[in-house]
């Protein structure tokens, strides 16, 4: 966080910079001098380079950063982009009171890709309770004007959201309506700063007025169908911990003051004079030196950095002890629960209780949120068709977000415009291509800035995606598509290999066929499977399975994401043999474990053959970025293949869950002994192992009961023991989040039922 200007044009009475204990601002330069900006940018770049950080977040703050003016801000932004962008992706943000925002500034922020958050406390009465000029005049109209500017389509990309400090004397309904009227992408609600030395105002007799006030707002928001994102409520949901004020995410914010001194987060200023100081500055000290400062270090410690009360608190994984500054008390320092503890506890209850749970169709009543619902269902060991559909939808949304991020990086291209057009006229075709498991690996590769700039830059995957979608939709189009090693791959459809195509080829799509021209080469490819094969065209083969069509993916270059060599294109007989084995294996899964088969039907779309390795003939793998696919060594026995499919599909499902939730406590570096490997494993690996082995146990138990397989009972017992020991070791390790513990606990339960059910 960069304090580029240390004064403010407003004079809010709740401002912790000017009104609270710390008065260090008095000794600071008004604006951050250019040499300090430069030194700060270099320190950040140095840190990004040394630690190979993929991304750095920089927030311009103040005082009021807009007081620098457009020219001053442009210098700061240019300095930051020039110094940092070669080393890491720079996410630039600004927090402002909005009073001075105008068209020119908005254009500047769009140009430099700065996302602007505006402080605004709600309706006029609420806002003007605190947010006024020194002469007492209202800022309400000026701030609303700023918000209207940011809402304009040409500026909207720079509109980050609203920061609203609450006051329980305001009317929560009116505040809610005023916020909603500004259609902010996101709202941050903040509790007023307070400490045990200076407790928050509690004007009435109620013990938890802040929880009551926020609970009212929460109810309105839920009733309205959650029309905007409110971070506080999202963060407080189970598994939702994600802001500094709640939850245990390590506080990774450092502040650079206008004079170049390094400080800890700002809100500490509310505690005591100089509370945030470290004694270090950007001229003489690196980020690493500051990070070793004891006050900063303790904040990286998660649960261990909290007081005894919080550590024992049942909702600590969601509350995280509240905002650090709110814990201050002279004498015990920060070793206390939040001064808002009672409110926080009650608010979490309120958020959990509303909307009231709909009575479950059967069984005993329980309060499950959608999060719990999804996880509970998967903790049965398999997961229903609707859960699988939800998981597949989230994966598709992630791929769409990645696509939009690629567009952010490359600007509008013909491929993007074609995709946007197809998304309107043939959304199903676009969906089918984006759901292909190897589209996401291509997008991630393209976006991954950890690859050194210029070196091995990934080809733009959008043109091939757009062409495949156009072909699928039967919509005529023409695009230039990058050629890699004489090859163009159209996801789901196949690869064209034509020597001499050059670096890029023009592809023209017509219904049922496409034409490619590059260098001296031209070729028309007919997609009709009954037409004579086109030279150089290798269509992706598929096989009919109970879940639909399963692709044998041996052509897409992005299938190489399994950390082990993939097989190159199979010849006709080998492909047919693998197809037969897979179809038969799928039927075996239906025979053995119908519940798992339903989950397989709901999501497995492609199988990648792995290269044979005589030392390890039976291998299979799943990749986090390729939901909907598994990789296997081609193996002729359907019974064996069925076990591999069930095992890998477990990993795929859990991988998709881990895109959404933290089940493992971050940053512990812990290793756990497991029965299935000689070396101790990280908790996430153990969780994956347990989840897969639970399913395999169920397969063998079913075989033991229904077939005369001689070793089925022994296998079942063996996998059952592995799973039980693994899950017990995991639970004993205390390395899971509360959400993770709940999940593992339910797996343990599913296991007991499995055991009871075994014969």
């Amino acid at each position, binding site marked *: 966080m960069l304090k580029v200007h240390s004064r403010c044009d407003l004079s809010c009475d709740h401002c912790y910079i000017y009104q609270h204990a710390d008065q260090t601002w008095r000794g600071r330069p008004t604006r951050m001098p250019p040499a300090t900006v430069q030194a700060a940018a270099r320190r950040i770049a140095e840190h990004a380079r040394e630690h190979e950080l993929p991304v750095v977040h920089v*927030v311009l703050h103040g005082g009021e950063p807009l007081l620098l003016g457009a020219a001053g801000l442009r210098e700061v932004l240019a300095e930051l982009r020039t110094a940092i962008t070669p080393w890491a992706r720079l996410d630039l943000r600004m927090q402002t009171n909005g009073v001075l925002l105008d068209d020119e500034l908005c254009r500047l922020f769009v140009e430099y890709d700065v996302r602007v958050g505006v402080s605004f406390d709600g309706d006029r009465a609420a806002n003007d309770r605190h947010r006024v000029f020194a002469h007492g005049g209202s800022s309400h109209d000026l701030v609303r004007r700023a918000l209207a500017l940011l809402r304009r389509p040409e500026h909207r990309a720079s509109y980050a959201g609203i920061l609203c400090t609450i006051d329980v004397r305001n009317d929560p309904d009116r505040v809610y309506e005023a916020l909603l009227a500004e259609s902010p992408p996101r709202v941050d609600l903040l509790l007023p700063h307070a400490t045990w030395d200076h407790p928050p105002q509690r004007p009435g007799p109620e013990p938890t007025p802040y929880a009551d006030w926020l609970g009212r707002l929460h109810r309105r928001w839920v009733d309205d169908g959650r029309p905007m994102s409110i971070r506080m409520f999202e963060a407080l949901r189970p598994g*939702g911990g994600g802001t500094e004020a709640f939850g245990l995410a390590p506080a990774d914010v450092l502040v650079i003051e206008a004079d170049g001194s390094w400080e800890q987060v700002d809100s500490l200023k509310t505690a005591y004079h100089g509370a945030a100081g470290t004694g270090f500055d950007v001229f003489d000290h690196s980020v690493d030196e500051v990070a070793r400062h004891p006050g900063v270090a303790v904040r990286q410690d998660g649960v261990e950095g909290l007081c005894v009360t919080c550590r024992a608190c049942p909702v600590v994984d969601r509350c995280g002890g509240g905002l650090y500054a709110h814990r201050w008390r002279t004498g015990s320092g920060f070793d206390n629960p939040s001064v808002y503890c009672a409110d926080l506890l009650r608010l979490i209850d309120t958020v959990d209780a509303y909307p009231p749970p709909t009575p479950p169709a059967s069984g005993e009543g329980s309060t499950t949120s959608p999060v719990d619902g999804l996880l509970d269902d998967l903790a049965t060991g398999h997961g229903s068709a609707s859960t699988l559909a939800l998981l597949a939808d989230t994966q598709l949304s992630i791929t769409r977000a990645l696509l939009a991020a690629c567009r952010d990086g490359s600007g509008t291209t013909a491929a993007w415009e074609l995709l946007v057009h197809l998304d309107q006229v043939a959304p199903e075709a676009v969906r089918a291509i984006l759901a292909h498991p190897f589209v996401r690996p291509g997008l991630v590769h393209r976006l991954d800035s950890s690859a050194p700039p210029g070196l091995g830059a990934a080809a733009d995957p959008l043109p091939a995606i757009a062409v495949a979608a156009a072909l699928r939709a039967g919509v005529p189009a023409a695009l230039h598509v990058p050629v890699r090693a004489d090859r163009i791959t159209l996801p789901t459809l196949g690869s064209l290999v034509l020597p001499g195509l050059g670096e890029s080829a023009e592809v023209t799509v017509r219904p049922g066929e496409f034409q490619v021209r590059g260098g001296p080469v031209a070729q028309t490819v007919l997609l009709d499977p009954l037409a004579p094969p086109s030279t150089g065209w290798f269509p992706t083969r598929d096989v009919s399975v109970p879940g639909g069509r399963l692709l044998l993916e041996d052509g897409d270059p992005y299938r190489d994401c399994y950390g082990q060599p993939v097989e190159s294109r199979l010849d006709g007989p080998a492909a047919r043999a693998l197809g037969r084995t897979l179809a038969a294996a799928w039927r075996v899964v239906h025979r053995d474990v119908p519940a798992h088969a339903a989950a397989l039907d709901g999501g497995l779309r492609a199988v990648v053959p792995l290269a044979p390795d005589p030392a390890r003939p039976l291998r299979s793998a799943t990749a986090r970025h390729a939901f909907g696919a598994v990789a296997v060594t081609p193996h002729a026995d359907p019974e064996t293949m069925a076990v591999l499919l069930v095992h890998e599909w477990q990993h795929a499902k859990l991988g998709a869950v881990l895109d959404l939730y933290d089940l493992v406590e971050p940053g512990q570096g812990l290793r756990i002994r497991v029965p299935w490997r000689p070396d101790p494993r990280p*908790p996430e690996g153990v969780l994956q192992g347990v989840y897969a082995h639970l399913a395999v146990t169920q397969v063998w138990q079913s075989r033991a009961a229904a077939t005369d397989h001689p070793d089925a009972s022994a296998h079942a017992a063996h996998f059952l023991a592995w799973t039980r020991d693994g899950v017990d070791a995991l639970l004993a390790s205390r390395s899971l989040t509360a959400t993770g513990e709940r999940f593992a606990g339910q797996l343990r339960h599913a296991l007991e039922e499995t055991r009871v059910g075994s014969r």
Partner: protein
Amino acid sequence: MDHAPTRPSRPDLDDLTRSLHVPLERIAVEHADLIEAVRSRVVTNDSVPSGIVAVAAFNSSI
């Protein structure tokens, strides 16, 4: 200025579900935070500490 900066958290289930119904063209504008969250969680995995399997063939890492 006020308080802590706004930072994206993990991709949120509701956001993800809602964004599926937003035309491709408008996602960047209406779901800028989601894109940021997906970037940090999926592309760079900067929330994932060492010792956790980020992109992996799970079989070799369970």
